[in-house]
C-alpha cells in the first residue's frame, strides 16, 4: 500500500516516514503549483537524498499547464529528474507525457488532471499509454471510484484527505482585487487567506502564486469511512494533501487511516478528529454526493 503526501520541509520527512507515508512529492519552482510549497532544485536534491536514506519514494510535481516558452525549462527538469533517480512524475499537461515518452519514461508518469478522470474508459485510455498511474477525480462518488478501480488494468490513485483544489486560474485574482480597492497589501504567496461567500460561512483557502490563483474547498476531505471499501475494490495508492494543515494535525489525521486499517470504527476515528479540529471541517466530500444537478 502506498501513502503519498507533499514535501513540507526537511524537518518533516522523518515524521512522515514514522507515520506511514511512503512517497513524498516535491514541487520545483516555476514548474509546479497547487502544493504546500515550491522548492529550488538544490532543496529538491537534498530532500530526495534524505528520502532515500529514510526509505521514502520521491516524486516530482510537474503539474502546471505549460506554454511553449515553458517547455525548455520542462526539458531541463527532466534532465535533473534523470540525474536524481526520481520514482514518479505527476503531470496535468500532456506535454509532460510527450517529453517523458521521448525518453522512454511513460511508466514514471502519473496523470492527475484534477477533474477529468471520471469514468472507467477514460482512465483505461491513459493507463494504456503505459503510464505509472492515473489519479481519479475527487469529484466522483465512492461507488464510481470502486467501479473504476475494479474495472481498469493498471494503477489508480485516490485522494483521501485534504482541502480539495476547486479551481485554478492563470489570473492573479488577489492582486487584481487589491488594485481594484486600491490596497497596497501584497497577498502573493500568502497561505492564510480565505474566501467566504457572502451568504455562507465556509472558509475557502485561496492562494496566489506565479502560476496564478488556486481556490480550495471550505472543508477537508477525510475519507476514513471509505478507506476499507476502496481497498476491498483493489485500491492500493492513497494521496493525503497536507496543504494548510499544521504538521501535528496532519499526522494525527494520517494516523486515523492506519487506525481504521487496524480495526477501529471509521465513524469513531472521524468523530474524534472532528471534535479535535473543528476548524478543518472534516467531511466525506463528494464520496456520497453526486454533482449532477442542473437548473430546471
Amino acid at each position, binding site marked *: 500500500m502506498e501513502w503519498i503526501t507533499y514535501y513540507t520541509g526537511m524537518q518533516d520527512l522523518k515524521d512522515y516516514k514514522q507515520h506511514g507515508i511512503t512517497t513524498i512529492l516535491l514541487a520545483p519552482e516555476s514548474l509546479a503549483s497547487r502544493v504546500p510549497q515550491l522548492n529550488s532544485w538544490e532543496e529538491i536534491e537534498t530532500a530526495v537524498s534524505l528520502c532515500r536514506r529514510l526509505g521514502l519514494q520521491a516524486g516530482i510535481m510537474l503539474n502546471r499547464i505549460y*506554454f511553449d516558452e515553458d517547455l525548455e525549462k520542462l526539458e531541463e527538469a527532466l534532465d535533473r529528474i534523470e540525474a536524481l533517480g526520481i520514482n514518479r512524475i505527476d503531470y496535468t499537461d500532456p506535454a509532460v507525457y510527450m517529453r517523458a515518452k521521448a525518453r522512454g519514461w511513460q511508466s514514471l508518469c502519473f496523470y492527475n488532471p484534477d477533474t477529468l478522470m471520471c469514468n472507467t474508459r477514460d482512465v483505461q485510455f491513459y493507463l494504456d499509454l503505459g503510464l505509472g498511474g492515473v489519479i481519479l477525480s475527487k469529484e466522483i462518488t465512492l461507488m464510481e471510484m470502486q467501479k473504476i478501480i475494479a474495472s481498469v488494468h493498471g494503477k489508480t490513485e485516490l485522494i483521501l484527505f485534504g482541502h480539495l483544489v476547486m479551481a485554478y486560474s492563470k489570473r492573479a485574482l488577489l492582486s487584481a482585487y487589491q488594485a481594484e*480597492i486600491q490596497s497596497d497589501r501584497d497577498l502573493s504567496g500568502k497561505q492564510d*487567506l480565505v474566501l467566504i461567500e457572502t451568504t455562507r460561512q465556509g472558509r475557502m483557502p485561496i492562494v496566489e502564486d506565479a502560476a496564478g490563483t488556486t481556490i480550495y474547498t471550505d472543508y477537508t476531505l477525510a475519507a476514513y469511512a471509505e478507506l476499507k471499501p476502496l481497498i476491498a475494490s483493489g485500491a492500493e495508492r492513497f494521496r493525503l494533501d497536507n496543504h494548510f494543515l499544521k504538521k501535528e494535525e496532519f499526522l494525527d489525521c494520517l494516523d486515523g487511516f492506519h487506525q481504521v486499517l487496524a480495526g477501529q470504527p471509521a465513524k469513531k476515528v472521524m468523530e474524534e478528529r472532528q471534535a479535535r479540529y473543528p476548524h478543518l471541517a472534516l467531511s466525506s466530500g463528494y464520496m456520497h454526493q453526486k454533482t449532477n444537478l442542473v437548473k430546471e
Partner: protein
Amino acid sequence: MKKKIELLAPAGDLERAKVAIRYGADAVYLGGKRFSLRSRSSNFDLKDIREAVRFARQYHSAIHVTVNLIPHDEDLEGLREYLMDLQEAGVTAIIAASPTIITEARRWAPGLQVHLSTQMSSTNLECIRFYQQMGVSRVVLARECSLEQIRYLAQNSPLEIETFIHGGMCVNYSGRCTLSNAMTWRDANRGGCAQSCRWKYHLLEKDERISDADRPFSMSSKDLLAFRYIPEMIAANVASLKIEGRMKSAYYIATVVKTYRMLIDEVLQHPGPLSAQQIAYYEKEFAKAENRPTCTGFLDHIPDHRDHLYGVNGSGVTHDFLGLVLDYDEGAQQAVLQVRNHFRKGERLEVFGPTLVNQQFLADEIINEAGEQIEVCNKPMETVRIRIPFAVSAGDMIRRGQAR
C-alpha cells in the same frame, strides 16, 4: 490557395442556428440533448440537427455538435449510436474532450471531424501533437493563450487551430473548475455550471476581513471582445474564430455574427491592421448587442483589475431589439413585422439584416392585425405592418438605439 478563415457561431436552438447562418456564420456549433455542456441552452434533438445541417448546406455553412461533457460511466450509454446518428445527419464535426468520446467517434463515425474542446486547456505544441495521435483534427485553444502564443501555435501546429474571439470567459482554466460542484452540487463539466465565480465573496487574512464591504471580492471576468486582433489572427493562419454564447438570443447572434462577417470580409479584401476609424465603427456595432463590459482577455496581457467585474455583473445594452421582419411588400412599402419589444409611432428605428447594413427610418405608420392604425406596439409576438421606405427582407431585424 489559403483556406478561408471560419467564423464559428453558437446556437441554442434551430431558430438561432438559422439566424447565425443567414447572418454570415461559416459554421454553427450546437449541443445535442445528451453529451453536451450548457444544459440550459435549449439543446437540439436529432430532427433539429438534421434540419440545421440541411439549412446550413444551402448557405455552404457547416454544423459542429458539442459532445463535450466530461462523462461519468453512467453518461456513456448510447454514445456510439449517437455519434453514428450525427454522422448520418451530415454533421461536419464534433467538439469533444473525453478520450473515450474521441476514440469512439474515430472508430464508429469516421466521417465526423473531431475538434478538441477548450475544456482540455491546450496551450502548447506538444499537447497538440498528443491529441493529434488521438485522432483529433482541430484544437480549440485555451482562452489563456496570448495573441503571440496563438500566432505561434497556428503557424506551427500540425492541426487546425480554433480560438475564441468573443463572449463570456471562464475566469478559471476551463474544465478544471468545480466551484459550481462544491457550491450548488451542479457539475460544470456536465452542463450544470452555476457561475459561482461571479458571486460575491469576503476575503480574509486569518480572521481579519480585508475585502471592501461595499466592493466585495469576485472572480467575474469581463467578456471577451477580440475584434481588433482579427487581422493578426487571419495572417497567422488560425482556422476558426469562435463566438461564445449558446444561451444568447437570436438578436445577439445576428448582431455579433453580422459584425464579424463584415469585419472579416473587409480584412480579407484589405489585409493589414484596422484603422482608428474602423475600430471605432466596429466597436459601436458590437455594442448594439447585449454584452457584459468587455476586455481583450489574455490576448495582450494577463487580465488585471480592469478586466474584472466587482460591482454589477449586468449587461450593457445600447440597443433594443424591436421586431423581426417576416415579409415585405415593395408596392406598398410595408414590412410585416413580428413585434418583440415596445416601440411607438414616430420613433427613429434601424434595420439590419444578412445583406442590409444599418438603414434607418421613421416609424410613421403602423397597422395592427385588425387593419387599424396604432400609436404603440406593446404586445410581444403581435404581427403588425409598418411602413419602411426601402426594401427589407424576411429575417431582417429592427432595433432602436437607447438614449445614453
